[in-house]
């Protein structure tokens, strides 16, 4: 950002517009070049078959196959890239290219998968449903980040709050499960406890930042490091010697009535864990709340220009406290997903940077719930495809595959694919008069 400020300072708006136009031209030309390059790759790849199989093992009756060649996939991807590039050049700086880029990802991912598989028949149904599953904690984390940053508070503590949420959900869920034997009650208790504790951590973050004017990055780091310390400590001291405290309830996949009977799509998209549906509902609800309600307007005003918001009588600090509390609740939900839905128990540092990847999804999604959801899906797909590739024994070092989400995150926050502007006042303390 500072570099942009440096050049924008003496000249003002005109230069910014010229820069935007230049960026748009570069983007368009790059995409066109990518398209042409894709045609070149296509020429030598028509003989390599690409067979994507969608088959659901647990039902068995759904079988859907896409048989094509890698060459044809290159042609399709190249055409799409050239088309988007041409659109970009034609429309200039006003072109809303971000959604198109996500659309473009689909054929290119297919091409790369096809090329890596090199003729092996791959069952993609797991990969696709896995993308939704793996995207869920990222979506929820990104929603928490959006709530905080739209209110004007940086929230790098997502990671720590998710970790604590994961731990709390396991302990409380295990205790309730042991006492009652009721899976549903244990799940609800575990998840609610995780949400409440994470919510309180959100309040702590807000209190440190607002009342004590601690730099919001430092306050977040306190929570992140403290979360690692306290959960590792609990794991080693308590959970290690009492495994009955680390046997949480399991949240199983749920067949949605009617929808799950649709062939192919049903088992893929409508037989997932309730978390997935919940996160999608939250995406819709938050989009409405943030952009269509009075509360949302106040929230955004607090993040963009708190002084103006304060002048018209909005209680900026109260809005920030509440936003961080709600963000904490969502973080707790996200944290509980990891042990209850996937791992089956609490492990040390099991969030493994998901809170930070969620922040990247938030940035790539331009601080918009739907955009963040789409970005989280991309990360989820990368994670899911990685599992497929390692199962199929594709010759890529696993360490490289493991690094992919982290590398994408850096690329995203570096804005290599275009810079987005977040809430103007996020991170700056506000003195209420």
């Amino acid at each position: 950002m500072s570099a942009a400020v440096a050049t924008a300072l003496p000249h003002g708006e005109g230069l910014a517009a010229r820069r935007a136009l230049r960026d748009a031209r570069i983007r368009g030309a790059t995409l066109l070049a990518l398209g042409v390059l894709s045609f070149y790759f296509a020429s030598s790849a028509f003989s390599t078959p690409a067979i994507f199989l969608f088959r659901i093992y647990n039902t068995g009756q759904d079988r859907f196959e896409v048989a094509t060649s890698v060459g044809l996939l290159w042609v399709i991807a190249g055409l799409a890239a050239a088309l988007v590039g041409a659109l970009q050049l034609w429309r200039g700086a006003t072109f809303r290219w971000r959604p198109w880029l996500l659309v473009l990802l689909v054929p290119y991912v297919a091409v790369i998968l096809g090329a890596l598989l090199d003729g092996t028949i791959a069952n993609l149904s797991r990969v696709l449903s896995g993308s939704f599953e793996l995207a869920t904690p990222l979506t929820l984390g990104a929603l928490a980040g959006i709530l905080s940053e739209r209110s004007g508070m940086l929230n790098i503590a997502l990671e720590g709050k998710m970790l604590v949420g994961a731990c709390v959900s396991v302990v409380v869920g295990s205790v309730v499960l042991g006492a009652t034997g009721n899976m549903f009650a244990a799940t609800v208790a575990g998840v609610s406890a995780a949400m409440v504790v994470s919510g309180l951590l959100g309040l702590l973050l807000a209190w440190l930042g607002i009342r004590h004017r601690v730099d919001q990055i430092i306050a977040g780091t306190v929570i992140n490091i403290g979360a690692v310390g306290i959960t590792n400590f609990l794991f080693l001291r308590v959970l290690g010697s009492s495994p009955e405290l680390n046997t949480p309830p399991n949240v199983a996949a749920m067949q949605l009535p009617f929808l799950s009977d649709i062939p192919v799509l049903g088992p893929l998209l409508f037989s997932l864990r309730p978390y997935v549906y919940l996160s999608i509902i939250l995406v819709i609800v938050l989009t409405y709340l943030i952009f269509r309600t009075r509360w949302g307007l106040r929230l955004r005003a607090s993040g963009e220009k708190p002084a103006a918001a304060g002048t018209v009588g909005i209680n900026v600090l109260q809005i920030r406290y509440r936003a961080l509390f709600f963000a904490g609740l969502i973080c707790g939900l996200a944290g509980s997903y990891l042990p209850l839905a996937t791992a089956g128990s609490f492990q040390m540092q099991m969030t493994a940077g998901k809170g930070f990847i969620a922040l990247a999804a938030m940035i790539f999604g331009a601080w918009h719930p739907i955009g963040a959801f789409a970005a989280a899906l991309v990360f989820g797909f990368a994670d899911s495809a990685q599992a497929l590739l390692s199962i199929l024994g594709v010759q890529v070092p696993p360490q490289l595959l493991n690094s992919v989400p982290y590398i994408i995150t850096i690329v995203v926050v570096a804005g290599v694919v275009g810079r987005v502007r977040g809430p103007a006042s996020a991170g700056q303390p506000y003195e209420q008069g």
Partner: protein
Amino acid sequence: MRALAGLARRALVPGLAVLTALILGAVVIILTDFENLAQIGSDPAGALGAAVGGVFNGYGAMLTGAFGDPERIRLAFEDPNDRTIATAIRPITETLVAATPLIFVGLAVAISFRTGMFNIGGDGQLIVGALGATIVGVGLQTSGLPSLVILALAIAAAILFGGFWGFIPGFLKARTGAHEVITTIMLNYIGAQVVLFALLGPSLRAAGSSQPISKNMSAWVDVPSIISLPAIRLDYGFVASLVMAAAVSWLLFRTTKGYELRAAGFNPTAARYAGMSAGGSMMLGMALSGGLAGMGGGFLVIGATGQLTNDLSGGIGFNAIALALLAGLRPSGVVAAGLLFGALTTGGKVMGIQSGIPFDLLFFIMAMVIMFVAAPGLIRTIWRVKVAKPAPEIASVAPTAPAEPV
């Protein structure tokens, strides 16, 4: 005398912060002592007493583990020979060994914070630096060069590797505005994977091991020991860390470049109007920071451990943030805080072995230290003392008015 009073005033908040954090750690130990707390219904006093006793046990083990067992020291005086002296001074020398990388990474954090960059990638820079040192160290195994020459080359490689790992986020921040908190954390994860990849390859891995452990290099390259007694690992890496502290102090406060670095951290806009390159300062500050952390990794892997493992850093990067803030981002303070944290680390490990209180509690204590140092108002409220306002560089450690949020 006035200087002493000034020192006491400056040390008041950090001292009380550490004390309060240790008390909170004790509370956590008591609350998780289920064995004793289970009896609280039948014998409340006894249960609480036993739980509190557990704290004294643990913290006591931490003290003797960090500074030495009085009994053993007495034995060493009564019957001074190599073995008794070594057992008596081993804890304190281990504290200095543990302090060495902490001082290096603490200096790295301090220099980056002074430049306005919140470098939490110390772990990654340290381990990538250690990888550089290992590559050179293992590569020169059959070169026949003297140990000191290999050491110098290995440390140079460590500085280059770590510096490069630190330069990346600096470059990204200066050129694209990518927030260093995210990029450095991501580079920590990537660095760990890179090191794992390198260690699992055939050229570095210890012969006959399937674990990610490098060859042990101590046969042909080592950091010279300060005290040559059996089982004493203290080496000149510690002296090097002190020299670097002096060098960082000189650079930051006595040179034009250092002034520019601090100006970029203090107010980048003003620095820019004064004709300085804030972006250049970010990149330089982060490269220096990464180089220091990498140097710490180099001394650690060539000296104290002799071989590279993928869990080499063990949270040093996190602890270094706490200690740099505790030190008020002053190099001399970093040395003092590094010694304190070295004692906590060494003692904490002994505590883990002797009393079963996991070492990881220290991370929680460190987090609380950061919180209390960053929010001295809390200390004021808890201890009813008058404390000075925090130094401006701590109050706004990331003062680069984040026009683009994380």
